[in-house]
């Protein structure tokens, strides 16, 4: 363990993060909401803490080991929750207590999008903007951004990148240098966000709403600047744009990079994971809209299709925008939509959940086991796109599944112990662990009414889910700390 170096990087990254308090000040001045003081204070506080961490160890120069990378990422995400909550805590509009401020910040950074605030429409523009911005930063990962911008990270950048980026196989670099890879990812991310904002604007959103919603769409976050979420706009055009960009955000950014570099749209279809992701979304949308129409939930098939497709993509990509909501839908649909979030988007996307590729590999492994029952001595490898999946990856995924469900169960029992009913408890954990946002029962739109203890459990679940279980759980194992 290389603690001085870890401290130095944490300090540097906090310094970098403190700069993100400046745009909201600009927003406050531009819209004249007079609400810049909390951000200036937060900027000074976070920068001071960063400086205090960095100054004593600024001359330390050592390479980060893999282990240090996990420590940096885990600790920094926890710091993010605290630092990001500062302005929310300082301001009196909304007047949040400590627990709520932390919950809101963590929910933002992890792109969950669950909120404890009701009455968004009356809040100052700067606060609204800030909430959207933390989602955007958390989407591609603020550590990936740090790797792109801070050359001092050097080789250690790879270990940080690996600890933050989701997916089971992250040894594949897009470019030889890790900083270039990080830069490429952020550039694509920023460009797509710009395209999304432009789309929203042309479809009739105000400039402020367009940018704000583009932030939380590309990051598959789910925060909105209105209590009614997308129902506020009630515009099919806006919903179609949102659906498309949520879908893009749920696909792998490495794949986007490949498509752009090869200038070949067909590369999407060649990717096995993307194909599975696309098919799953298409089938669920078709099934749900037919079912909703049959059950008479909507008058016409057209409106059933409109709401089903928006809501399915919103849940499947872990965004959590709502139009009509799905909690009151008939039959198994509400529970099914919640379970859909376990699959979620592709590895290397901004979506949460367990990722399509893991399910795909586990499913194929299951098929292989079936075949083995018939031909006990057959050699049947699990393949993806014609290439054998290494046994290491498969067992890694098996371990991930086991760990995921253990964590899921433990946190759910905790919520029940804190007095939540079963439906609320399991959907709250599913929505937090998968970074989605809305749940069922008491947490359909807001988490305001659950007890503080439950909010803490959910905030932890969001962090655990965003860092894909292992990074955080690793810190609790004695083996990690043993020299």
């Amino acid at each position: 363990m290389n603690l001085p170096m870890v401290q130095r990087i944490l300090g540097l990254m906090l310094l970098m993060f403190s700069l993100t308090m400046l745009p909201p000040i600009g927003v406050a001045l531009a819209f004249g909401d007079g609400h810049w003081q909390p951000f200036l204070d937060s900027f000074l506080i976070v920068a001071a803490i960063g400086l205090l961490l960095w100054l004593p160890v600024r001359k330390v120069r050592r390479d980060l080991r893999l282990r240090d990378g996990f420590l940096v990422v885990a600790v920094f995400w926890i710091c993010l929750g605290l630092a990001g909550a500062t302005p929310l805590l300082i301001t009196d509009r909304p007047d949040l207590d400590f627990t709520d401020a932390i919950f809101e910040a963590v929910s933002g950074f992890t792109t969950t999008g669950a909120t404890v605030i009701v009455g968004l429409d009356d809040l100052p523009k700067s606060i609204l903007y800030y909430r959207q911005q933390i989602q955007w930063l958390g989407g591609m990962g603020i550590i990936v951004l740090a790797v792109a911008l801070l050359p001092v990270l050097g080789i250690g950048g790879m270990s940080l990148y690996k600890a933050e980026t989701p997916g089971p196989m992250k040894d594949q670099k897009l470019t030889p240098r890790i900083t270039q890879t990080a830069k490429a990812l952020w550039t694509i991310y920023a460009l797509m966000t710009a395209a999304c904002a432009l789309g929203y604007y042309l479809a009739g959103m105000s400039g402020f709403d367009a940018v704000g919603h583009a932030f939380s769409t590309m990051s598959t976050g789910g925060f909105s600047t209105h209590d009614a979420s997308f129902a506020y706009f009630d515009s099919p055009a806006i919903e179609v744009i949102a659906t498309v960009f949520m879908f893009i955000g749920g696909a792998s950014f490495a794949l986007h990079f490949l498509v752009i570099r090869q200038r070949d749209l067909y590369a999407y279809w060649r990717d096995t994971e993307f194909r599975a992701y696309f098919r799953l979304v298409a089938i669920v949308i078709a099934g749900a809209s037919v079912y909703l129409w049959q059950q008479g939930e909507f008058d016409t098939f057209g409106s059933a299709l409109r709401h089903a497709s928006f809501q399915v993509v919103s849940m499947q990509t872990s965004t959590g925008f709502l139009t009509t909501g799905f909690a009151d839908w008939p039959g198994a649909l509400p529970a099914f939509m919640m379970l859909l979030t376990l699959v979620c988007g592709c590895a290397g996307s901004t979506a949460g959940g367990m990722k399509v590729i893991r399910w795909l590999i586990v499913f194929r492994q299951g098929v292989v086991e079936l075949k083995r029952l018939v031909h006990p001595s057959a050699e049947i490898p699990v393949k993806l796109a014609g290439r054998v999946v290494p046994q290491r990856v498969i067992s890694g995924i098996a371990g991930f599944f086991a760990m995921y469900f253990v964590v899921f169960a433990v946190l759910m029992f905790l919520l029940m112990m804190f007095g939540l009913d079963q439906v609320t408890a399991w959907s709250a954990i599913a929505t937090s662990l998968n970074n989605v946002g809305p749940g069922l029962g008491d947490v359909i739109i807001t988490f305001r009414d659950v007890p503080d203890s439950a909010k803490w459990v959910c905030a932890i679940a969001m962090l655990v889910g965003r860092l894909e279980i292992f990074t955080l759980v690793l810190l609790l194992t004695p083996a990690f700390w043993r020299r």
Partner: protein
Amino acid sequence: MKIIILGAGQVGSTAAQQLSREQTNDVTVVDTRDEILRDLQDRLDIRTVSGNAAHPAVLEAAGGNGADLIVALTNSDEVNMIACQIAWTLFRTPTKIARIRSGDYNQRPELFGDTAIPVDLAISPEQLVTDYVERLIRYPGALQVLDFADGRVRLVGMRALKGGKLVGHQLRELRAHIPNRDVRVAAIYRDGQNVKPDGDTVIAEHDEVFFIAARDDMRTMMKELITEEAPVRRVVIAGAGNIGYRLARALEDRAQVKLIDRSAERTRRAAETLRNTLVLTGDAADEELLLEENIDDTDVFVALTNAEEINILSAMLAKRLGARRVMALINRPSYAELMEGGKIDIAISPQTITIGALLSHVRRGDVVRVHSLRRGAAEAMEAIVHADGRNSPVAGKRIDQIGLPEGTTIGAIVRGEEAIMAHHDTVIEVDDHVILFLTDRRHVEDVGRLFQAGTRA
């Protein structure tokens, strides 16, 4: 520069490590062994691609399209050549370097060229190592001998020993010891630490001293650091592989050479072509055999088998039995560090030698030669000063006016046929070959930039 390295063996990994350390290089390594690649990627900031190095699809995935340099270092000469051929045919890769082991290919230079097998530089590690060892044996006492400017200037590293005339004296006395000769002490390492040499520095026993001198002044300077050694008369070589055999052939006319190998087949084949060498079949780590062959009367014992552990052990044994100087071929840098200067006089690292040759071609244009010293801790460079009409940071300047990075010294300048030892007031002219010594290899790039022609900066 975009670089593809094929083969992640010893030399491939080291090359990837050294090249990726320079920020301007993008390195991709190709190998068939996933384990090694994963390991490498965890350690270095590079990309890895798994697959057969000679397959077009693999080369393409590694970024063959747009690569500036391809370095083929797989175990197979044939794969290396085919990979270069494919890179040239498909991607027109400008520079292709291949490791070609087999002497058969190397004897026919007409094989290599854009119209035949498009390899711009065929590196033969065996030949490089042989040359290196031969130079060490020719200059008894030297740890490292490097040529610059076609051998007009040499950089020698050696360990100062009791009896050397300068040992225990200040460096400024050197001028009195050897008047009329110009020698520059470039660096001194004491207990592994770099000591900045100036006039007051006292040379102590066991210091590792690097000096730069014109070829003819070398021997004079060496006498300053060690007692005069008798020229090498008797050499025992363990291992009749490629290197051992070539070394025996290079030395057999000047010294009495004994070549030992375990394999009867190898010794028979060696004996068929060697004229004056005594070829012995047996175990080089066998005490009886060594004593029988008068190891106690041997000037130099060189262990060059394929197994580094055996090399280390047999060299240690030879030393204990009385061989005057022992050398061993050691691949792992950490082993070399452990052994050198202790029980083994010189650790020969084929990687460092190969990498040195490789890097001097990779670093483009103005830097013509780079040698790793002390297993990569320091470097010696040879750079050419260009006239580019603009303000060169070097040309026309006095040495003390040049803003050199810390730990960098200009040792010598070769102007035409003349070798000039550098002083603080020496003025550098256009087309000079400047020989620099860097105690901190991180500055290699900065120095390279100094000498870069303005158009490319």
